[in-house]
């Protein structure tokens, strides 16, 4: 009969030490992660606020100086520049139409993952 004392000793020591060390790492990484993340968020917020204030001041200055310009904006493409609208319409036409396609609305959809990130993931996982 083999000596089971050493077997049990290693089994219990192994479980305990591996879990203890890795749980300790969880706590330490969590703590320093939170500290660094919060500190960087704060400094980022400060920078953003300063940048926004500067931008607002510049825009106000421009508005005072420049003559009023009438900007055409259609309800279907609010917030999207005419150049982008032209590009999207051309792409749609190239894909689906032969000069007889009419783009009625262009809506910006909420995006959970950047397009390039999605493309990268697709590329990485394609072999499967």
């Amino acid at each position, binding site marked *: 009969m083999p000596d089971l004392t050493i077997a049990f000793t*290693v089994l219990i020591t*192994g479980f305990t030490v591996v879990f203890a060390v890795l749980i300790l790492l969880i706590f330490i990484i969590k703590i*320093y992660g939170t500290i660094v993340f919060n500190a960087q968020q704060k400094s980022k917020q400060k920078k953003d606020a300063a940048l926004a204030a500067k931008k607002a001041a510049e825009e106000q200055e421009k508005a005072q100086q420049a003559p009023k310009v009438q900007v055409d904006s259609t309800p279907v493409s609010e917030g999207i520049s005419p150049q982008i609208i032209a590009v999207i319409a051309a792409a749609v036409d190239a894909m689906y139409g032969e000069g007889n396609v009419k783009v009625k609305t262009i809506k910006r959809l909420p995006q959970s993952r950047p397009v390039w990130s999605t493309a990268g993931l697709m590329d990485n996982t394609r072999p499967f």
Partner: protein
Amino acid sequence: MEILNGFLESLQGLYTNSGLSSLVWQNFVMIIISIFLIYLAIKKQYEPLLLLPIAFGMLLVNLFPAIMAAPETTMVSVSDYMASHGGEAGNYATTVMDGVQYYNVPSNGGLLYYLYQGVKLGIYPPLIFLGIGAMTDFGPLIANPKSFILGAAAQIGIFITFFGAILLGFDAAQAGAIGIIGGADGPTAIFVTSKLAPELLGPIAVAAYSYMALVPIIQPPIMKLLTTKKERSVVMEQLRPVSKLEKIMFPIVVTIIIAIFLPDAAPLVGMLMLGNIFKESGVVDRICKAAQNELMNIITIFLGVTVGATATGTVFLQGSTIKIILLGLLAFCIGTAFGVLFGKLMYKLTGGKVNPLIGSAGVSAVPMAARVSQKVGQAENPSNFLLMHAMGPNVAGVIGSAVAAGVLISVLG
């Protein structure tokens, strides 16, 4: 007639020196196995970067065992030596026995014997870890440190298999070396085996690398068996971005913790983290690239060919090899199962936010195990991307198996 005799003697000499007279049947079986492994490496591309040098080392040593021979010292009587060297004295240390003076004439070992010292002395595995560290992004683990639990859970297979190996009659040190196969980490398995049971290096290395190559075949059935369709379909939230400062701090913190609490794991984890800080610091681009490419490739060649060269016929073809291969498979399966089971536990505790499939990636085998989690998850929900979530437990598994190695060396070494 004299010419004919000389010719026959030459032929006899050639035969005596050739493998045909010195090789035993086990060598020929190993030659066939090594050719089959070369086929698997080239045709099936099963971990070819390692399997090809391992298989070729196996082929070489079984054809020409002297390539792995250790250096020897032969005692030659001084008078005989001088007689055969035209009366000139040799420059060797002398020993006097029964009034006769002898030279201690050293002979060199085989080529692979010298390269093997890097394995024997535990040098190559930490250097491989240096390269792995220089290529690894610990970001997913820093973003979700709970992944460490899955990396720890998947190491349970190591200790349960250790228990099984003891029951099958292996001694404690050998059982520890066999159990580490469950860590699914080749360099760690070699490191532990070279310290605890160097005589089992061949079978253990072959088993460890074979199972790593077979991850996409071994893991999915266990993952599917232990999870429901609903669990496999869970889409996890996107990980938070990790700053450069956090990534730089990670290797320093991990090194401090491991070196203080588990110094036996320090060579592996320390080199892993050194490679990682090369990468994350961004200031040593040249040496980072050297660690990732040239150094890693050179060590891979030396490691592969010399580990293969330990698998001589008489050592490899024993009943214990079959036991090791079966125990290794058991370790691997138990590790995968516990990873998934702890993933299920996290699924319950987080109210269904964690996909249990990422647990299987805790067995290391970077990045293959994470890709398997991705593949099995995507089979249920094609728009589900688990890859980055699985990379957390996957790299945690590397640290976890190094910690488990430290425990085994510390207790059994």
